[in-house]
């Protein structure tokens, strides 16, 4: 009886894993077919191992440029989120003023407001600031959308750090500047990695803000570049579309494989605290 349950459990888990991976496997098969391969004929599970699609997709789409753009946007906004979020989290968790409490409350309330709602007025503001079609403008928008959650995570984390360390540093005549950057900031590593990973993928993949703020083709990010490339085929050249989609998701998958341990840990820690 118990053995049966174990077998059932393993089968179910194997099935779920397959379900999650199948689209990626099929995508790879499609990407490795020659343009002439017809899906009706021959074995559809074994591709022809033709790698020309990747080269053609890379050259004809804007995906290379878009990856650089997405990379710059992600780096800039993640840096902003971490630095500003950690500073805010420190002030809010250590100095219990009405002012700080008000900031914290406002940010938490706005966490429930989805980004798309203020996009149109933000668009007119961005035009005034000459920030439309600029990577820094997009980075500022993305960072802003992640600030509430980052402040929330940092505040919770800093509250769990004992105050005694700082008190000792004050007695030694340490300045606040030094206490924060030399003592507190290095202790924040787990929270920083959680915040970076939680927001990094979303910013790299952002589409609903990019549609508004990055309209110039040279400033497109990865989802936009792929979308433009796909629309010109209207569903015809599958091998090329599959190969380009694979190129587009490859950096994310590599980053995920490298960071997956801390990603899982960050997600789980964040979940328990929330």
């Amino acid at each position, binding site marked *: 009886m118990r053995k049966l349950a174990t077998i059932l459990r*393993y089968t*179910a*888990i194997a099935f*779920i894993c397959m*379900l*999650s*991976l199948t689209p*990626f496997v*099929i*995508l790879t098969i*499609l990407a490795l077919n020659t343009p002439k391969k017809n*899906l009706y004929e021959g074995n*559809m599970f074994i591709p022809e191992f033709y790698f020309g699609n990747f080269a053609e997709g890379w050259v004809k789409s804007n995906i290379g440029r878009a990856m650089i753009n997405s990379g710059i946007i992600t780096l800039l906004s993640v840096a902003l989120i971490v630095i500003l979020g950690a*500073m*805010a989290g420190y*002030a809010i968790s250590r*100095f219990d003023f009405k002012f700080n409490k008000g*900031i914290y409350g*406002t940010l938490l309330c*706005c966490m*429930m*407001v*989805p*980004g*798309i*709602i*203020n*996009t*149109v*007025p*933000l668009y007119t503001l961005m035009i005034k600031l000459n920030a439309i079609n600029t990577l820094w403008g997009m980075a*500022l928008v993305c960072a*802003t*959308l992640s*600030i*509430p959650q980052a*402040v929330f995570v940092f505040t919770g984390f800093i509250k769990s750090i004992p105050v005694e360390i700082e*008190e000792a540093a*004050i007695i030694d005549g340490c300045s*606040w*500047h030094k206490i924060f950057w030399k003592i507190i900031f290095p202790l924040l590593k787990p929270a920083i990695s959680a915040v970076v990973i939680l927001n990094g*993928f979303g910013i790299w*993949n952002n*589409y*609903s803000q990019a549609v*508004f703020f990055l309209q110039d083709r040279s400033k497109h990010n990865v*989802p936009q570049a*792929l*979308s433009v490339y796909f629309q010109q085929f209207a569903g015809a050249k599958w091998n090329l579309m*599959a190969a380009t989609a694979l190129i587009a*998701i490859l950096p*994310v*998958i590599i980053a995920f494989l490298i960071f997956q*341990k801390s990603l*899982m840990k960050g*997600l*789980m*820690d964040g*979940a*328990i605290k929330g």
Partner: protein
Amino acid sequence: MNRKKIGIHTFMALPAFLLFLIFFIYPLLRGIGMSLTDWNGISKANFIGLKNFIDFFKDKRAISDIRTTLLFALGSAPLLNIVGLSYALLMNSKFKGKSIARMFIYMPAIISPLIMGYIWSLLLQPGRGYIHHMLEKIGWAQGLGNWMSSYWSTMLVLILVNVWQYAGMTMVIYLAGLQSIPDELYESAKIDGASSIKQFKYITLPLLEPSIRINVVTNIIGSLSVFDVVMSLTGGGPGYQTETLSIYIMRMCYGSKTGYSTAVAIIMFFIILIPVIISLRLTRAKE
């Protein structure tokens, strides 16, 4: 530490708040003002009071968009929670390859939903997608059929793709909750002779409350503001049938109905706020 001493360090939350004030709160307030005008994005705006809001409820396309958005959320949010919780229960034991399995299941969630929608459209295209041919090969002559020809089957595909993509994310949060439940509780329940159904009802579910709250709220917000998947899988089509509110906002903004689009955004905000507040109340009431 002297906490009452005011200095620059006590205002360290200010930079983050200023950024938020400029790029979030200010546009939010401006949007409320804009929604009361007939602004088209270029020429001078005229104050027209609540006309945009009244127009919205007379706008057939907008009403159809509300229906689609609500239907998507009603299908997607509960299903995501059920699937995510069952995945988590299944994965919440020690077995070989656990972290690899968890990684595979989570993987779809890190990929851009827009790109994921395109990938699924490659696989599911009626009449010529890969899965269509695969089903034909194994003797299912109809293949997938033309799911895009009917509203309900198109919605079903959109919901299933969304659930497929985010099941792993929901699972991880439930897993974290499950792992924070002490084993002793289950052991003493077993000694008292409680069945596993009773254990689930009286131990697991109540102690999962924080995870349930996070998942329910994030899934409600996420599914009601859905944009990317629908854009890439159906583009809102056929016609405007599967268009959601957030796509409508974008199209109205580009269609030189800027004032109107901000009014739609404010209505959408309340559509999201109401279920979020209700679910927060419901989960908090039990504590």
